[in-house]
């Protein structure tokens, strides 16, 4: 419908600019704005990263099925988006993930076993954020985008932006999903980031679904255009193309580090698995849709590219496969060995400065346990 005054109705599918450097068939194509030269080693590195992260994900899914994890949130199909975004980071950059960014965690040297602890229920997050410049997973949708923006405001106050010193200038990445884009917190993060010109890259993995809600429920235009309304640029990249994601993120991070302010990157991808291990996607989406996306698999296309261009030999692929097996074996072993926490420890973790009240509750807990042990 076209309004005589206000123009045509919006269209979610109005073919938006989608940055792509590698076709689903593994053919290298070019893009005026975001073309980088990639060495064979780099591309092999991406392949290795993605393959290992996929194994990590499959292994964790299996661990959940075997009762070793309470829950698992699969990254299956989103490896290119996550490795592209993760590998474009500099060490000083800081990342605020959601609960699904296993690939980015991988790039930040989080041990895969550490990713399991929260889903096993032994802690609420297993690594030291400051050690990895990678925050704990955030479960409340959208909340972390404000943390990222605030962190970026801190970076500005530290004078760590726009200095031209590549070891100093810092960007912050706020990860979020297509569903999250509807949360007030995400819009407020856009407002604050724009208002202070904060060095934050909003990286949205549009995997087409928020549990059972399709992207149409959240937006009637391509999501990367959301930032236009807030006065900063947005770009859509093929999130199943690791080369394109890396290139776009490199440019976006540079933009932020240089002091040019926030930017939105929409990685157009697909959640190949269920929302989580408790979800049953057959209730709300068609198998054909999943099949269509399987043809765009992010790993297959890199493999095809490597083979087609002769950038890797069979030994390489075997080596990576072996490494993946090893990783899987280690995850199975170490997951089961993750120690359960001591209940009495929770009283010590509430505050930096402990209170008499909690000491008393801890004592009453201890006494209860002791009395109970007496009985038995």
């Amino acid at each position, binding site marked *: 419908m076209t309004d005589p005054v206000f123009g045509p109705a919006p269209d979610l599918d109005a073919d938006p600019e989608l940055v792509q450097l590698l076709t689903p068939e593994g053919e290298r194509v070019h893009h005026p704005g975001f073309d980088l030269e990639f060495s064979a080693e780099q591309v092999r590195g991406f392949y290795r990263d993605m393959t290992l992260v996929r194994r990590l994900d499959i292994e964790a899914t299996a661990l959940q099925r075997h009762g070793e994890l309470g829950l698992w949130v699969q990254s299956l199909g989103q490896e290119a988006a996550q490795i592209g975004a993760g590998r474009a980071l500099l060490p000083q950059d800081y990342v605020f993930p959601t609960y699904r960014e296993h690939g980015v965690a991988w790039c930040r040297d989080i041990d895969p076993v550490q990713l399991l602890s929260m889903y096993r229920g032994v802690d609420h997050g297993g690594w030291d954020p400051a050690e990895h410049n990678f925050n704990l997973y955030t479960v409340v949708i959208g909340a972390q985008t404000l943390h990222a923006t605030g962190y970026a405001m801190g970076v500005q106050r530290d004078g760590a932006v726009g200095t031209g010193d590549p070891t100093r200038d810092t960007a912050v990445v706020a990860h979020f999903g297509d569903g999250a884009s509807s949360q007030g917190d995400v819009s407020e993060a856009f407002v604050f980031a724009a208002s202070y010109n904060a060095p934050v890259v909003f990286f949205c993995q549009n995997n087409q679904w928020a549990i*059972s809600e399709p992207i149409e429920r959240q937006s009637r235009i391509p999501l990367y255009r959301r930032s236009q309304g807030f006065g900063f640029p947005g770009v859509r990249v093929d999130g199943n193309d690791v080369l394109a994601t890396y290139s776009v993120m490199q440019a976006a991070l540079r933009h932020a580090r240089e002091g040019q302010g926030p930017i939105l990157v929409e990685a157009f991808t697909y959640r190949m698995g269920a929302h989580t291990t408790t*979800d049953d996607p057959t209730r709300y989406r068609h198998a054909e849709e999943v099949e269509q996306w399987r043809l765009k698999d992010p790993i297959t296309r890199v493999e095809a590219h490597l083979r087609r261009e002769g950038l890797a030999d069979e030994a390489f692929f075997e080596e990576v496969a072996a490494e993946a097996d090893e990783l899987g074996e280690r995850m199975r072993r170490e997951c089961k060995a993750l120690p359960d926490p001591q209940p009495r420890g929770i009283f010590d973790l509430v505050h930096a400065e402990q209170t008499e009240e909690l000491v008393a509750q801890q004592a009453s*807990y201890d006494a*209860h346990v002791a009395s109970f042990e007496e009985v038995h």
Partner: protein
Amino acid sequence: MTTMTMAKALNNGLRRAMEDDDKVLVMGEDVGTLGGVFRITDGLQKDFGDDRVIDTPLAESGIVGTAVGLAMRGYRPVVEIQFDGFVYPAYDQIVCQVAKLHFRSQGRIKMPIVIRIPFGGGIGAVEHHSESPEAQFVHTPGLKVVACSNPADAYTMIQQAIASDDPVIFLEPKRLYYSAKADVDEAATPPPLWKSQVVRTGSDATLVGYGPTVSTCLDAAAVAAEEGRSIEVIDLRTLSPLDLGPVHESVRRTGRLVVVHEAHMTLGMGAEIAARVTEECFHSLEAPVLRVGGYDTPYPPSRIEEAYLPDLDRVLDAVDRTVGF
């Protein structure tokens, strides 16, 4: 009379309410095609259409805020909050708008909104999925707050809440959705919504619970009975308004009271009940009112949630303490 789970009882209750009044709407994240992550709204969109069973964008303030507008237009929205820990983005709309519009408008605006919240722990979930936020709503004038503890109540209480012209926070003990099965007589005349109920009589001490802790209290009473102790158990059902008449009556006989809830101890329901019962039954009390609740820590990782939650042992412990006071 049919045997059904609490999930099914709620589903049937919602269906019945939608059949009875075509102004009743169901809305929330994933409530449509999926039927909700707990399947409480299963099949409703298929039968009532997506104008009445509304899949929403992922934004809790938006869900509750638009429900306010729908109520002003004459609808009766039943909002699903996916998990207890995700009600907080909607907190402002709930406490400043839903709770206050009747008062603000001198009764001209009615807010017949039901906000369903699966609450409580014990399901081995990750953070934010096991919270017990009831005290905050009970502290908020203008809201009514109820919690069901069994399938029969679930079936009738949800319908009564929807029929109420006041906003109701409707708490569903999620861990009982599929574990609590019971006979539900859909034709029975239900007790009034705003009444607590004695669910086991006794004379040595009184236990008060609601939602998930009622069965813990009943279990404790059964164990105590083996030891020769007679424990009365009261299911609170309505947290706001509080119906403490049966509790007072009971405490006047038993002289001892223990309140059990999963919410944090400090300023949990136990505090209010202790304060009121002590004021009302000062001379009848043989011991101070004791509280068994979640500790004053954030909800712990699920591998140790059993140590955190009030369980049979902690309740029996408290019974021992009050009897031995």
